[in-house]
């Protein structure tokens, strides 16, 4: 596809993946470094080392990847792959993100299966699960920061987040009810607040 806008022309001057297989291996290397949080690794690899994207472009793509349903890094692979090589690029980037980590996780699960009876192994997993709970809570706190500037205002945002937490975490209501219901309310309120 030829460049049609100034942004496309600027992006054309920047380094880009050579082929879908370049995408596959780049995303494999990236995925294999991502212990716990992949975001920091994605930014370092794609923006700083490979310079496929500027920081601004990266933030935009990441916001969309986060808003779309589905795992963020999976969405990001699909969006970037599509951008360079259409659907073949999307498939290549996505497979790169998943292939090797799947093998590793299966190997770990098999090892765990052999040693699951050992109290130390069970204890280690219990400790890691507690840490994982903390990591996820921290991600929520970090993301809550920018809500200060939200069009709905901080109290309404806090109320919506709290309602969502209580309905799902405490009352165990199915997400199929909670997300569309609260989501419609939240998007309508936001829509009324932002200028046309």
């Amino acid at each position, binding site marked *: 596809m030829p460049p049609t806008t100034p942004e496309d022309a600027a992006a054309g001057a920047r380094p880009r993946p050579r082929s879908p297989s370049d995408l596959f291996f780049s995303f494999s290397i990236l995925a294999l470094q991502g212990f716990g949080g992949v975001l920091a690794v994605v930014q370092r690899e794609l923006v700083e080392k490979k310079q496929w994207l500027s920081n601004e472009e990266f933030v935009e793509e990441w916001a969309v990847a986060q808003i779309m349903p589905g795992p963020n890094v999976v969405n990001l692979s699909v969006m970037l792959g599509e951008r360079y090589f259409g659907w073949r690029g999307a498939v290549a980037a996505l497979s790169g993100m998943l292939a090797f980590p799947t093998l590793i996780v299966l190997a770990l699960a098999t090892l765990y*299966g052999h040693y699951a009876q050992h109290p130390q192994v069970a204890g280690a*997993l219990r400790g890691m699960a*507690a840490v994982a709970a903390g990591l*996820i809570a921290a*991600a929520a*706190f970090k993301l809550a920061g*920018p809500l200060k500037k939200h069009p709905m205002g901080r109290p309404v945002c806090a109320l919506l987040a709290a309602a969502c937490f209580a309905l799902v*975490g405490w009352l165990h209501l199915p997400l199929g009810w909670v997300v569309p219901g609260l989501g419609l309310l939240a998007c309508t309120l936001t829509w009324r607040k932002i200028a046309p």
Partner: protein
Amino acid sequence: MSLHFEALQWLQLLLHYASLSLLAVGGAISLVPDMHRYLVLEQHWLTETQFNASIAIAQAAPGPNVLFVGLMGWNVGLNAAGNTGLSAHAATLGLLGMATTMLGMLVPSTLLTWLATRWAAQYQQHRAIRAFKQGMAPLVIGLLLATAWTLGSASGDPRHDGALWALSAVAASLVWRTRIHLLWLLAAGALLGALGWV
């Protein structure tokens, strides 16, 4: 643990994940409470321990966290095989389970993202698109907190609860306030658990 698993059950598993897929705003991890309700409480396809181990192992491994979904399917497959160790039969059912949950989880949302990427590039500044992007933000946070809560309160043994909650709180504040590498925290959690301190 041995399960009665036939085509109907595999289909149910696939459809459950496919129905969750488009609700995964904030990532697959925000769906953990619902997976727990379905797999552990309603269908009894996974034990509490297997459920938590799937998440913890995927967190400890490199790569996208969504692989915990594959591990849940893997464990359902092993249970369907009678959980008698890793025979060829068990591995086949495990891989079938993994493929079922991963495809169910990823195909709908990935297709939507792919189509939306192609379509939305032209309408970035449209009011409805901005309202959607910004409006969903508080829900993403609420869902993440619910996930942390489900993971944190999963340990049923009251002797361990206090120390585990403290560990979660310390990990959360360290990640929130410092730039410490997450791997150190996971390793510390594993060590404390292996020593029997939490």
